[in-house]
């Protein structure tokens, strides 16, 4: 093990330096120490120590995390392929962010509640949401449709940042219930600029709500690099609102797990909110509609490939003989099966009936929609065979 300190010239420090360059204000007037990154597993698969955070995992648990990482990447790949083949309208890939999502997702207890953006396929996996359920939105057969209460995993939210307020409100509910639970809310680096996200920091702080803000800083908001959102590291935002912020290596599943677990524990114990900035990288396009070659250089991606969140766990497991080749083969096989299963059930997903347009808008009868529904039903019936 070595003490955690990103090496000069490694992609993370390069990125950090690039970011620091944009800090133009006089360092004597309020600048803080350079950001420290909690890391427990290096890109090379070495375990490192961190003074404040550690984690003790059984080989079984490590294998479990590895399996999670591989399987969610497989689901994601399959979804990208499904989109390419026209089976999904669009897909927001989590490629590169698996560790941030699995690490934080596995830190949650059943009683905790998670509020995702549109990219938390890994967290959904940890919560036990059937991956096929995630596809409906992207296929265009529904806007989400799962029951948030079933797995304590809220619906995907597309309007950037709105879910942060829902999460804080939910956490205020937990407080009122006196429940032993916390809320975690996910958002991106771009989202930190939205008024709602900052209001959610205020609410959480003022009411000391049991919420963990989990920002996946993948360094891009579509084409905009991080410096369009902030000139200092994002985790520092929290200090301005009076609660702790911490930066974790978002490609290190151990560190993400350890840091999130601690923050959730603090929240449950009445110590209020924490902001976690998981420093990671969006290895894919923003979505399947995006073309990142228009705005970012290829070298960046290449550098980050060396920090791959899965490879380092694999290297660690090899080095420490936590698994043999059979294990890795079996996970590959499971992944292939899962991919096939997801694909098959995606293709089977039925289109909604036209009259579903009028369903679920209100929970009690609504005269206007009843009227529109009847008129449209009659209209449809007027076509030959009742089909347009």
């Amino acid at each position, binding site marked *: 093990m070595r003490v955690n300190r990103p090496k000069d010239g490694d992609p993370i420090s390069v990125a950090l330096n690039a970011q620091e360059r944009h800090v133009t204000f006089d360092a004597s007037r309020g600048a803080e120490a350079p950001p420290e990154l909690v890391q427990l597993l290096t890109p090379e698969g070495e375990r490192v120590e961190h003074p404040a955070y550690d984690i003790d995992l059984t080989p079984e648990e490590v294998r479990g995390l590895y399996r999670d990482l591989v399987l969610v990447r497989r689901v994601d790949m399959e979804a990208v392929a499904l989109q390419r083949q026209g089976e999904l309208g669009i897909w927001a890939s989590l490629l590169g962010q698996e560790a941030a999502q699995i690490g934080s997702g596995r830190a949650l207890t059943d009683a905790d509640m998670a509020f995702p953006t549109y990219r938390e396929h890994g967290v959904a996996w940890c919560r036990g949401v059937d991956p096929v359920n995630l596809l409906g939105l992207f296929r265009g057969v*529904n*806007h*989400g*449709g*799962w*029951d*948030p*209460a079933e797995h304590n995993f*809220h*619906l995907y*939210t597309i*309007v950037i940042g*709105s879910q*942060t*307020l*829902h*999460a*804080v*409100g*939910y*956490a*205020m*509910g*937990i*407080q*009122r*219930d006196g429940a032993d639970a916390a809320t975690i809310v996910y958002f991106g680096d771009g989202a930190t600029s939205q*008024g*709602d996200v900052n*209001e*959610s920091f*205020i*609410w959480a702080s*003022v009411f000391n709500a049991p919420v963990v803000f989990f920002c996946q800083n993948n360094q891009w908001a579509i084409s905009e690099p991080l410096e369009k959102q902030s000139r200092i590291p994002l985790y520092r935002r929290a200090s301005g609102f009076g609660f702790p912020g911490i930066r974790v290596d978002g490609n290190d599943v151990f560190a993400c797990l350890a840091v999130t677990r601690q923050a959730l524990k603090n929240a449950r114990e009445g110590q209020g909110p924490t902001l976690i900035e998981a420093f990671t990288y969006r290895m894919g396009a923003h979505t399947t509609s995006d073309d990142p070659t228009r705005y970012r250089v290829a070298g960046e991606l290449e550098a980050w490939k060396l920090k791959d969140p899965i490879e380092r766990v694999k290297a660690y497991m090899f080095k420490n003989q936590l698994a043999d080749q059979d294990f890795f083969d079996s996970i590959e096989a499971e992944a292939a099966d899962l991919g096939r299963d997801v694909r098959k059930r995606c293709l089977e997903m039925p289109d909604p009936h036209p009259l579903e347009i009028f*369903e*679920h*808008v*209100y*929970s*009690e009868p*609504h*005269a*206007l*929609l009843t*009227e529109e529904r009847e008129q449209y039903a009659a209209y449809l019936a007027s076509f030959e065979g009742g089909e347009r």
Partner: protein
Amino acid sequence: MTTLTLAKAINEGLRTAMEDDSKVLIMGEDVGKLGGVFRVTDGLQKDFGESRVIDTPLAESGIIGTAIGLALRGYRPVCEIQFDGFVFPAADQIITQLAKMPLRSLGKIKLPVVVRIPCGGGIGAVEHHSESPEAYFTHTGGLRVVACSNPVDGYHMIQQAIRCDDPVIFFEPKRRYWDKAEVERGAAPLAFDRAQIVRPGTDVTVLTYGPMVKTCLEAAAAVEQDGRSLEVIDLRSLNPLDTEMVFESVRRTGRCVVAHEAPVFSGLGAELAARITEACFYSLEAPVLRAGGFSTPYPPSRLEDHYLPDLDRVLDAVDRTFAF
């Protein structure tokens, strides 16, 4: 039977709802110790505590956003927007989240959030304190929009709004807060989405809601002596509309005027006019005419008596329907 002002009637309705269901919360700016700038939540924090009557940070988006979260956790928040003109910072949470989340979940989520908005002009206030933003919400599928006009409805409708499992935008006519009426607490209230004929008549149907109900009733009284009989309908529910009652009335009278404070252009009166014309085409002796605010920002208060449709403007519209 008790005589209550509208403000007090809503206050009592809130109190009853809070007694009936411990999940009901009040939240907003100054709703606690102060009891709201109009005192509609007066005394509630004292009696139900700070965890049920929540003075929030000063941010409307935050109020609605956290109310949604509380509703997801099983609470029934009643949010106060301090004045009509300050609902816009919350527009995104209302329009993209509150209105759409139940559908997003295919009905698995219910969002029983009430957004109370003191609305309308006539109190001599500065900018942003006299507006009538209902059309922004009636155009937003997923919301129910209602307006009370009197203490009886204030008392009952707020309770119905709270009991309703859908999000409700609840308009309260601020210049009528001090109007009094007898309220019978035990009375069976009219259904939440029904209009009410508040004055029967035979010559012209006058459709209105909120603060203009009183104005229209005065207009009706004023022309009675001239032998002109106005039927005044208090719409109460703005989305959905009680078109059944409206159409029946217009078919009987053959003439219709809609009166509201909001700007006429693209206002709710347009929807009523369009819908009535389609449904009652052969019964109409004249087009449905509208008396409303002008298509400008709300003017400085010394001009508001010109901006707001008053008795004369309503009667002018009535007269004009007879010119056809």
